[in-house]
């Protein structure tokens, strides 16, 4: 943070993070910045943040670990790369009154250093209008800097979400700090009237920052942030830890996408830049940006009924940026619009490995099935061949889900699982749709027995335990996912 002046920000391909109004009785006009990291649109929004990502460290969206919604942001530092990644957000200068901040954080390894701070126009210095609030981890402990003294708060537990609520009083140069830990009702930290980081009264603020280490270049920290809200309304500090149902599960993806897309082949929504083969620092990736524009134009053509035009756009995009997996799926959708079923099948077979665990592939399969004719016809057509033809089987299963025939989908998945263990997961999914967590757990466990490192199954187990309120088991699977990903 102390070297900001020497670092060049990567702008505007941080097109993932959006200005979202906070909920639950917070006056929207009192919110200065709010990041839920869950918006589906990835076009540019208000320019309220910057990502620094020049060396090996990264800042990116993550859909595996999230406190609420679908995504959080992951900050990953790498020791010895002569730099540090940073998510830096800014807002209109506040020179008097109070600032309230609310955010959640989680790290798999608290022994690695992380730092976050609220600061003013003098940036991340010890001067007046520099840092006013500074939280960091040292040797596994969360610490805050108050009156130039590093003070330990508590030993951080890996994979546990902590929600931080800060009220900073600008004129007095003091703050209240409350930290809550998931699964525990009362705050584990409740400090009042703390002297600001370097005891500067009247120190204005206009930015916040989340980084790895502060330049020692020794940290390999990975940590996650969610639900960042900063504003001038005290109600921000009263945002719930996790609102009931706020954390989105994989079936929520299915249900929400299903309501958004029509029953005729259409572009499926992109989730983040990786769908286009882009990174957050891809502002110089002209080919990538061009491909994305081709896709967008193609989607408009598809929606307007110009299927041939759409197809040529999608093929051009795929040629320009083959790493963009969404282009392959869009090609399949366009081919479905042309009713070229052999080519559709070939295309879906070709791209299926890229979409493992992604609910959008299932949706696409359902849409294709529907495009073949009406749903009942699709069911009739697919039904007899489905148990012998793997791709037909998938399409048939997703058509059943689309029609909300969950019991039929479950029975079908069970029959298929007798031949292929990969169908245990689908049986679990259908059970989940049937609101039967016990059955879902059993089927997912069978899937895990067949493939112990299957991340999608680990994620769903985590979701089921969250759903039934077993946070300990949910955390266990969070850790298992981390182990499987390393």
């Amino acid at each position, binding site marked *: 943070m102390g070297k900001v002046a020497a670092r060049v920000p990567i702008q505007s391909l941080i097109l993932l993070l959006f200005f979202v109004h906070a909920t639950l009785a917070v006056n929207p006009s009192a919110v200065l910045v709010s990041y839920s990291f869950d918006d589906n649109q990835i076009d540019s929004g208000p320019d309220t943040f910057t990502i620094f990502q020049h060396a090996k460290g990264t800042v990116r969206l993550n859909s595996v670990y999230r406190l609420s919604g679908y995504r959080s942001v992951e900050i990953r530092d790498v020791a010895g790369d002569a730099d540090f990644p940073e998510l830096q957000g800014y807002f209109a200068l506040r020179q008097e009154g109070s600032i309230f901040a609310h955010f959640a954080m989680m790290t798999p390894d608290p022994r690695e250093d992380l730092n976050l701070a609220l600061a003013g126009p003098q940036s991340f210095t*010890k001067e007046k209008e520099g840092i006013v609030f500074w939280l960091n981890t040292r040797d596994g402990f969360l610490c805050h800097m108050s009156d*130039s003294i590093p003070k330990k708060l508590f030993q951080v537990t890996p994979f546990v979400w902590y929600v931080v609520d800060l009220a900073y009083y600008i004129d007095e140069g003091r703050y209240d700090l409350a930290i809550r830990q998931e699964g525990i009702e009362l705050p584990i930290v409740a400090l009042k009237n703390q002297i600001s980081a370097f005891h*500067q009264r009247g120190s204005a603020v206009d930015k916040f920052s989340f980084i790895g280490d502060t330049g020692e270049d020794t940290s390999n920290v990975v940590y996650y942030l969610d639900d960042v809200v900063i504003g001038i309304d005290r109600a921000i500090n009263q945002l719930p830890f996790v609102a009931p149902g706020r954390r989105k599960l994989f079936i929520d993806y299915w249900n929400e996408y299903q309501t958004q897309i029509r029953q005729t082949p259409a572009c499926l929504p992109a989730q983040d830049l990786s769908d286009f083969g882009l990174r957050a620092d891809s502002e110089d990736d002209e080919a990538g940006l061009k491909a994305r524009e081709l896709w967008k134009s193609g989607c408009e053509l598809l929606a307007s009924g110009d299927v041939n035009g759409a197809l040529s756009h999608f093929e051009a995009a795929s040629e320009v940026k083959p790493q963009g997996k969404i282009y392959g799926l869009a090609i399949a959708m366009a081919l479905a619009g042309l009713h070229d079923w052999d080519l559709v099948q070939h295309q879906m077979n070709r791209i299926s490995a890229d979409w493992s665990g992604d609910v959008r592939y299932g949706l696409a399969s359902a849409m294709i099935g529907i495009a073949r004719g009406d749903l009942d016809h699709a069911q009739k057509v697919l039904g007899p061949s489905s148990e012998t033809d793997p791709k037909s089987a998938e399409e048939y299963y997703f058509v059943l889900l689309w029609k909300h025939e969950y019991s039929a989908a479950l029975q079908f998945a069970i029959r298929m699982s007798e031949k292929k263990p990969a169908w245990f997961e689908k049986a679990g999914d259908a059970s989940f749709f049937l609101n039967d967590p016990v059955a879902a757990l059993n089927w997912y466990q069978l899937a895990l027995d067949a493939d112990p490192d299957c991340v999608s199954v680990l994620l769903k187990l985590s979701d089921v335990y969250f759903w039934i309120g077993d946070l300990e088991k949910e955390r266990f699977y969070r850790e298992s996912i981390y182990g499987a990903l390393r």
Partner: protein
Amino acid sequence: MRRKFLLFSFLITLAGYAFGGIEPATVKTLVSQYNAQALKEMGPAVLPVLVKLYEQSSDMEQRGNVATMFYQLGWKSAEAKRVLMKDIHTQDRLLRLRVQYALGRVSNDPDVVDVLLANMQTDPNPLFRDKAACALTYDQIHLTEHQKVRLYEGLIHALRDAKLQVRQIALLALKIRTGQTKGFSPGASEAVRESKIKEWEKWLQEYRSNL
């Protein structure tokens, strides 16, 4: 003749192995070029070679260059500290400054902070006092939190020094390290200064209690 040549070659090779295969002549050249990056790439095995070069050199400038390399490498080394400490009171201006800067970069031993605090307060040369304060401010990079308390204790003690300059540089060191002055004014009356020193000491007590 041939035997002498073979013996000479053997001894040179042995010396090379003694220094981990690092050629002293190469190190000497890199030092003269201020090429810390190349020395860094040789790894910590270069440290004994640098120590030897420092110790055997009667050229103050060359010693100063080696001290600068110790500074830029920032690696702890008991031997580097040993040789640098021999020159902590040298009257050679350039060497003295470089030694004062480098010591905290090779060691966090208590006597390093102690000798710099002493130089800051008692050296007859105001330039050396000033640069000792700089070293205490910027270059004690290996200190643990407990060791920082000793450093702060020494700086706060120096706020009571009879010399105005010492009080000024001690305050500046505290300000840069902590962001605060606690209202201490080096030129104020003794009574006023003392009340602010008491605030610093109270602060230090709280710092200590948070360890």
